[in-house]
C-alpha cells in the first residue's frame, strides 16, 4: 500500500511523455483491466471464436447460430436450463430466508454455528455432493428404500430436472444466505425503530422495511445462484441430465473428434445470457440508495423469542439443516462404510478408508490450501479495488471493469482450461524453464479468475452499505484518498470482504472443471482432483469420501473462524469500543 499512499509519486520522477499522468486509482484500474483481458478475455476468445467459424471453410459466419436456434434439442435445452435456474433460486430462497432471518433477527443460541453449517454445502465438490445425495435421496437411496419397505411407494426426488434443482439449491443456497445475512446485519437499527414508531410491525415491517433494505444482498446472492446454476456442469452431468445448455456444450466440446462448432456456440450463448442476467440485476438495483449514514448501529435489534416461538424456530432450523446437511451425512456414512449397496445403511463400518486416504493424499491437501489461498487473497484485493473504483470514482470505463470481472462467472471451467492451454502453449516459465502450460501457478490463476466474481459481489454489497458521507467526512478532515480507503472504507467492509474471501476460498478448494484440464502431474493436483481419482474405482469410493470429509472439515473450520471474526467485529461496534 505504500506506493498508492502517495499517488503519482513515481510518475513525478519520470518524463511525462513516457508516463502520462494517471491517478493512482487509474493505474490500479488499468492494471486490473490488463489482468482480466490477459487471463480471461483472450483465453476465452481463443476458444469461442470457433463459434463464428464455418467448420468447412474456416471463414467467418453466423450460420452456426442459425443452426442453434433451428435445433429443437437446443431450444429445449435452453428452456430447461432457464427453468432449473429459476426454480433453484426459488428453492434456495425458501431454504436461506428463514435461516438468515432467524439468526440475525432474534437472540438465538447457536446462530454462529448455523451460519457456519449453512455455508458448508458450498464446499463440497458437486460430483461428491451428487454421489452422497444419490445415496440418500436416489431411486434406491436410504429414504426411498425405507418408503418402499414400509409403504410400497417411492418419491422421485432425484429424477431428471427435479434432481438438478434439488442438488443445486442445496449446493448454492449459501450464496443467498451469506449475502442476505451480511445485508441484514448492516441495516441501521434506526430505520427499523422509525418504522416501529410509525406503527409498523411483524410481517409488514419485514416486507416493507427490512427486506427492501436487505435487497442488495439478496439480489447479489440470487443473481449468483441463477447464473451458477445456469452454467453449472457438474451436477447435471453427474445426474445424467443432458438436455440442458451447459452439459450440451461440454459434451460437444470434450468428445474426441467432435469439434462441430455447436459446443462453442453454446458457450458463447451461456456467456451472453449470464451477462444479460447480471445486467438485469444491476438494472433492478439502479437508483436505489441503500447505504445508511450511521454505520455501527449494529444491525437489526435482536429480541428474545417466546417459548412457543423458540420451539417453532428450532424446529424450522433443524429441519432445514437436516435437509441441507444430508449430503454430508451421506458422505460421512460412506467414508466409514465397508460396503454400501442397495441398502438403507452401509453393511458395516471401518476406519480403513481413512488409512488408505491418508497414505496418499497429503500433497493434495497442501496443494489445495496453496492454490485456493493464493486465489482467494488475490480475489478480495482485486474485488475490493474494483468495487471501490466502480462505486466511488468516475474513471472512464469503470463499469466495464465490473462486467469483465463478473463475466468470469459465465465462462465454463472447461472453456477456460482449454483457453489457458492454448494461451500458454509454448511459453516458458522464467528461470526454471519448464513449460508454462504445465506450471502449477496457472491453476491458481485459473481459480483466481473463476472465483473473482464471488469476491467482487460480496465486496460490492459491503461497499454499497458504506455511506459516502463517511468518506467525505474523512477527506474533509484532511485524509488522503488512500488513507480514507485504508482507515475508513476497508474496515467498514470487513464483514463483506471476509465473506468474499471465504466464498472464493471454499469454492476454489473444491473446483474441478478447469483444474482437470490444467493439472499436469499428480504432485501438482488439488484435492478435488484427488477425490475424483479415488471415486473412479470401485475400491476407492470410501477413501474418496474420506478425503471429501477432510476437505469439508478444513474449509468448515476456516468458515467458522472467519464467522467468529465477523461476530466479534460486530460486538465491538455495538459496544462502541471500536477505535
Amino acid at each position, binding site marked *: 500500500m505504500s506506493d498508492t499512499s502517495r499517488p503519482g509519486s513515481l510518475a513525478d520522477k519520470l518524463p511525462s511523455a513516457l508516463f502520462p499522468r494517471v491517478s493512482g486509482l487509474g493505474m490500479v484500474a488499468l492494471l486490473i483491466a490488463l489482468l482480466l483481458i490477459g487471463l480471461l478475455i483472450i483465453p476465452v476468445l481463443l476458444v469461442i471464436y470457433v463459434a463464428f467459424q464455418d467448420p468447412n471453410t474456416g471463414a467467418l459466419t453466423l450460420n452456426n447460430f442459425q443452426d442453434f436456434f433451428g435445433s429443437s434439442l437446443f431450444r429445449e435445452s435452453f428452456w430447461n436450463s432457464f427453468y432449473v435456474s429459476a426454480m433453484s433460486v426459488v428453492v434456495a430462497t425458501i431454504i436461506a430466508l428463514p435461516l438468515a432471518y432467524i439468526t440475525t433477527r432474534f437472540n438465538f443460541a447457536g446462530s454462529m454455528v448455523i451460519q457456519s453449517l449453512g455455508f458448508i454445502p458450498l464446499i463440497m465438490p458437486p460430483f461428491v455432493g451428487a454421489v452422497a445425495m444419490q445415496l440418500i435421496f436416489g431411486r434406491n437411496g436410504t429414504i426411498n428404500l425405507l418408503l418402499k419397505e414400509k409403504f410400497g411407494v417411492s418419491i422421485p426426488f432425484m429424477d431428471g430436472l427435479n434432481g438438478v434443482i434439488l442438488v443445486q439449491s442445496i449446493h448454492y443456497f449459501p450464496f443467498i444466505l451469506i449475502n442476505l445475512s451480511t445485508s441484514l446485519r448492516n441495516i441501521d437499527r434506526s430505520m427499523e425503530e422509525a418504522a416501529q414508531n410509525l406503527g409498523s410491525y411483524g410481517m409488514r415491517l419485514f416486507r416493507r422495511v427490512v427486506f427492501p433494505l436487505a435487497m442488495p444482498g439478496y439480489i447479489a446472492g440470487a443473481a449468483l445462484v441463477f447464473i451458477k446454476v445456469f452454467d453449472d456442469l457438474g451436477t447435471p452431468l453427474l445426474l445424467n441430465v443432458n438436455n440442458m445448455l451447459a452439459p450440451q456444450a461440454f459434451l460437444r466440446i470434450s468428445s474426441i473428434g467432435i469439434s462441430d462448432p455447436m459446443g462453442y456456440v453454446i458457450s458463447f450463448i451461456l456467456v451472453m445470457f449470464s451477462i444479460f442476467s447480471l445486467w438485469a440485476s444491476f438494472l433492478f438495483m439502479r437508483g436505489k440508495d441503500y447505504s445508511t449514514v450511521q454505520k455501527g448501529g449494529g444491525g437489526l435489534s435482536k429480541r428474545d423469542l417466546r417459548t412457543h416461538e423458540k420451539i417453532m424456530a428450532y424446529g424450522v432450523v433443524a429441519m432445514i439443516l437436516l435437509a441441507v446437511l444430508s449430503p454430508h451425512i451421506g458422505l460421512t456414512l460412506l467414508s466409514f462404510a465397508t460396503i454400501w449397496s442397495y441398502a438403507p445403511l452401509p453393511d458395516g463400518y471401518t476406519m480403513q478408508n481413512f488409512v488408505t486416504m491418508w497414505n496418499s493424499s497429503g500433497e493434495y491437501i497442501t496443494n489445495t490450501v496453496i492454490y485456493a489461498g493464493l486465489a482467494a487473497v488475490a480475489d478480495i484485493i482485486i474485488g475490493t479495488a474494483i468495487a471501490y473504483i466502480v462505486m466511488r470514482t468516475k474513471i472512464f470505463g469503470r463499469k466495464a471493469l465490473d462486467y469483465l470481472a463478473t463475466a468470469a462467472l459465465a465462462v465454463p471451467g472447461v472453456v477456460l482450461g482449454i483457453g489457458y492451454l492454448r494461451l500458454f502453449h509454448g511459453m516458458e516459465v522464467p528461470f526454471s524453464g519448464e513449460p508454462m502450460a504445465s506450471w502449477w501457478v496457472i491453476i491458481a490463476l485459473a481459480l483466481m479468475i473463476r472465483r473473482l466474481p464471488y469476491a467482487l459481489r460480496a465486496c460490492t454489497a459491503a461497499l454499497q452499505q458504506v455511506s459516502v458521507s463517511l468518506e467525505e467526512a474523512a477527506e474533509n478532515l484532511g485524509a488522503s484518498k488512500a488513507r480514507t480507503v485504508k482507515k475508513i472504507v476497508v474496515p467498514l467492509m470487513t464483514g463483506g470482504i471476509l465473506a468474499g474471501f471465504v466464498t472464493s476460498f471454499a469454492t476454489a478448494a473444491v473446483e474441478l472443471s478447469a483444474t482437470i484440464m490444467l493439472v499436469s502431474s499428480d504432485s501438482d493436483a488439488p484435492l478435488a482432483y484427488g477425490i475424483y481419482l479415488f471415486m473412479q474405482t470401485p*475400491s476407492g469410493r470410501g477413501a474418496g469420501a474420506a478425503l471429501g470429509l477432510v476437505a469439508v472439515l478444513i474449509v468448515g473450520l476456516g468458515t467458522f473462524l472467519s464467522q467468529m471474526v465477523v461476530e466479534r467485529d460486530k460486538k465491538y461496534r455495538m459496544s462502541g469500543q471500536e477505535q
Partner: protein
Amino acid sequence: MNSYVRGTLAAALLATTSTMAMAADKVVVITSFPNSMTGPIEAAFEAANPGVDLEILNKKTSAGVKYIQELAGANTADVFWASAPDAFEVLKGDNLLATASVTSTGIPDTIGSYPINDPDGKYIGFAAAGYGIMWNERYLKGNDLEPAKEWSDLKNPEYHGHVGMSAPSRSGTTHLTVETLLQGEGWDKGWAEWKWIAGNFATVTERSFGVPDGVNTGNFGLGIVIDFFGFSSKASGFPVDFAYPTVTALVPANIAVVNEAPNGDGARAFIEYLLTPAGQEVLLDPAIMRLPVNPATYEAAPKGFPNPFAEGSTIGAAVEFDVFKSKARYNLVNSMFDVMITYRLDDLRSAVRAVQLAEAKHATGDNAEAKALIAEARALIEANPIDEAQSLDADFAATFTKKRKKVTDTVGERQAQVEQGWDTMVVENYRRAQELAEKAAAM
C-alpha cells in the same frame, strides 16, 4: 541471469512446491486408468527399475487426447496409456505417436480375433478386455429378477427401468460395445437391438465408470460394462457379478510412446516391462483384473478367471471386429446414438414401454388389428435415419469429423443440420409409435 542465481531460485522453488522427483529419471504417463490399477504397476516397475520415476497423470480418455493435442510442439508427455484403440487411432492420425519399437517374447499376434498391436507399430496392446453384463445380486433379488446372460435378454420387458449404460460419445470403451453389436448383428438389426435395450434404460451415464458405480450402489440393477469393472467391483466386496454374452469382442488395452517424448528411452523401458512375465502378472491383482496378453501368465490366474487363449474358448471369437469400419464412422455412430437414445431417452422409454404393455396384453390373443398396430409401432421405433452404406460414405462421415484437410475442402451439410433432421424424425417416430401401441393396448 547467472547460473548461481538460477540454481538458488530453482532450489527455492523445489523447497516450496515439494516436487521431489527432479533428480530421478522421470517418465510422464498420461493415462485414463484409475490409480488402483496404475499404483501396483508403478510400484512394480519402479522396484524393478530403481532410478526411474513414473509420473502418472490421470485424465479421461477424451481429455487425455485433447491434452496431448494441445501440448503438441512443446510436448511434456512420454507415454499415452488407455483402453480404447480408437483414441490411439485419433492420435496416430494427428501424427502424435512415435513408433514404439519395443521387444517382447511369448506374445501372440491376436487375442480372440483382434490383432494385439497396431499394424504400423505405433501402439502396443498390453492387456485385453471384453464387454459384458454386470448385475447387483441384492437389487435383482429385491426386484425378483434373474441376471441377463445375453444382450438380447436386456430387451425383455421385466428389465424396464433397471439397466444402465454409458454413452459411446463419452467413453471410448462403450463406443466399442456399440460398434461390436452393430458389426455382429448388422447395421439395421444392431441399431434396433440397441433401441430396444435402451428402452429399458434407467439412465445413460456420463462417464463409463458411472455404470459399475450405479450397479455397485444399487441405483440400477444391471449395467453394460467392460469386464475389469465387473471383476474389480466384485473383488472389492460389492454384491455384484459379471458375465460375457456370446456376441462380444475382446479388444486390447494399449500403450504408446508420444511423439517427441522428452524421455523416449524411459517410455520404452516402461512398455517393455509391462510385456515381461513379471509385468503381465501384475494385471492379475484383484483391483486390476485385466486379461494378460501373454498366454503363459494365465497359469498364475485365480480359479474361474476367463482365459481367451484356452482351447475352445468362445470369448471374443464370435465377432470379427473390423477396426477400419469402426474408424470410418466413429463420430457418426456416436452422434446417432446421442440423437436417437441419449438425448431422447424419455421419448424412447415411453414408446418402448407402450409397446411392451401392448404386447403383454395381446400375447395370447389373436387380435389381428392390434398385432398390426404393434408391428407398425415396432417398425417406427426401429427405423434408422441412414443405412449402412451411407454410414460408410466418406463424404457423409466427414460432416462429423473434426478437421478440414484443406482450406478448399467443403462438405455439403453441417453436423447441426443433419442432427436436427434426425432428431425431428426420431421424436416424431417415437411419438407415433407410442400412440399406436397405446391404441393397440386399449383394444
